[in-house]
């Protein structure tokens, strides 16, 4: 712990099992993935497989992050190229086969390609066609949630 404090590190953090339904999950959306009417394309709701083989959609838990923080965490493109959407935890869990799992990231030394992130949360479960049981319905329901809540950080115009 003394070493951690000396370099400004506060982790590692325990994984928390319970995410309250009224909390939010923040997710970046690249401006290129926004449609003619200013909403995210359905394809953004898809899983990425990490180095441990876990297929999930990465988000940030509102308990440890705000939408601006999620935007600033962008690595592949400038943060200003992204908007941020918020998904209610309770709403996500109403979508078939979806599960939410807090998965804080902590590496020492910190990996610049995968920065430490206490808020990091995986949304597990099939989404697109390449996933077993993935379906149009699942992505349509994600879109419906976004359209109710709107943007947490508005994206730049294309």
């Amino acid at each position: 712990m003394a070493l951690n404090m000396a370099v400004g590190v506060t982790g590692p953090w325990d994984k928390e099992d319970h995410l309250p339904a009224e909390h939010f999950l923040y997710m970046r959306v690249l401006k290129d993935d926004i449609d003619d009417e200013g909403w995210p394309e359905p394809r953004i709701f898809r899983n990425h497989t990490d180095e441990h083989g876990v297929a999930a959609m990465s988000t940030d838990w509102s308990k440890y992050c705000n939408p601006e923080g999620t935007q600033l965490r962008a690595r592949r493109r400038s943060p200003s190229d992204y908007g941020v959407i918020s998904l209610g935890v309770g709403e996500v869990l109403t979508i078939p086969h979806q599960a939410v799992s807090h998965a804080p990231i902590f590496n020492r030394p910190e990996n610049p390609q995968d920065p430490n992130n206490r808020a990091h949360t995986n949304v597990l479960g099939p989404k697109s066609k390449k996933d077993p049981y993935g379906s149009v319905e699942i992505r349509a329901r994600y879109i419906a949630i976004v359209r109710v809540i709107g943007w947490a950080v508005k994206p730049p115009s294309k």
Partner: protein
Amino acid sequence: MYAPLTEVKVSPKGAERYWIHLPRDPWQQYAFQSEPLFGSIVPDQDFTVLSRTEFRTSLEESATVIRRQIPPKMKGSVAVQNYNLLQSGTTQDLMEVVKLRFENSLLRRENENLKGQLRARAFQVAEQIQEPVRRVSGFSLPSTLGLVAERLERSRAMLGLDFDWDGEGSPGYKEPTWQLAAELVVKTATGYYQSKQKPAPAAVITKGDEGSIDVQWRTPTRNILINVPADLSDDVHYFAHDAGAPGHSFGAKLNPRVSNEWLLTWLLA
């Protein structure tokens, strides 16, 4: 007995005049029953019928000559009440109207009415044909659906994306996939326009997952998402979501090669 029509063909002739081909005289009154007939359609002018001989002559002579040769009983203008008798449709509908009338042997009693309907329909067909169209990669849409055409055109940008365009190994988008998505959009939008006589909402056409293409129609509370797969042998699926009554949402497979205007009817209900 009255022989049913076997063919009605509408083809442009010049900038404003259109001809329908009537293999039989629908009214059995014409003096040249042994010859195929041609109906001359010019909006806001008389609907006239010519025999084949007269038709050929008309191609060589002036409009004045044509008018002189038309028997008076086959001429007539379109009354306002007749003009609105029939809803939208195609030349096939026009043929069906005539056929049905023949088969029901109502021709004699309703002769005048039929003529009025046929004239009205002919004018309507002419109007539809003459409505300016927007063309997008082989598809034609009425100019009223200009926004649909614009979005289709813009969506073609995705065809320029090659493998790994997103840095995540995603495949590019193929022309046949776009063509099928466009066919779905065009047939559904025009089908809705023709059946409801009002413009269909513009679809949103976007990059889907794994080379597929997503098509959406939406209102503030309802959303239809259709996924056209990259592999055209796979099924097209849709899901219709109602935020006001999520329990009433529904989805299934969809035939993209026919008009699915019923989806838009649900969306806008």
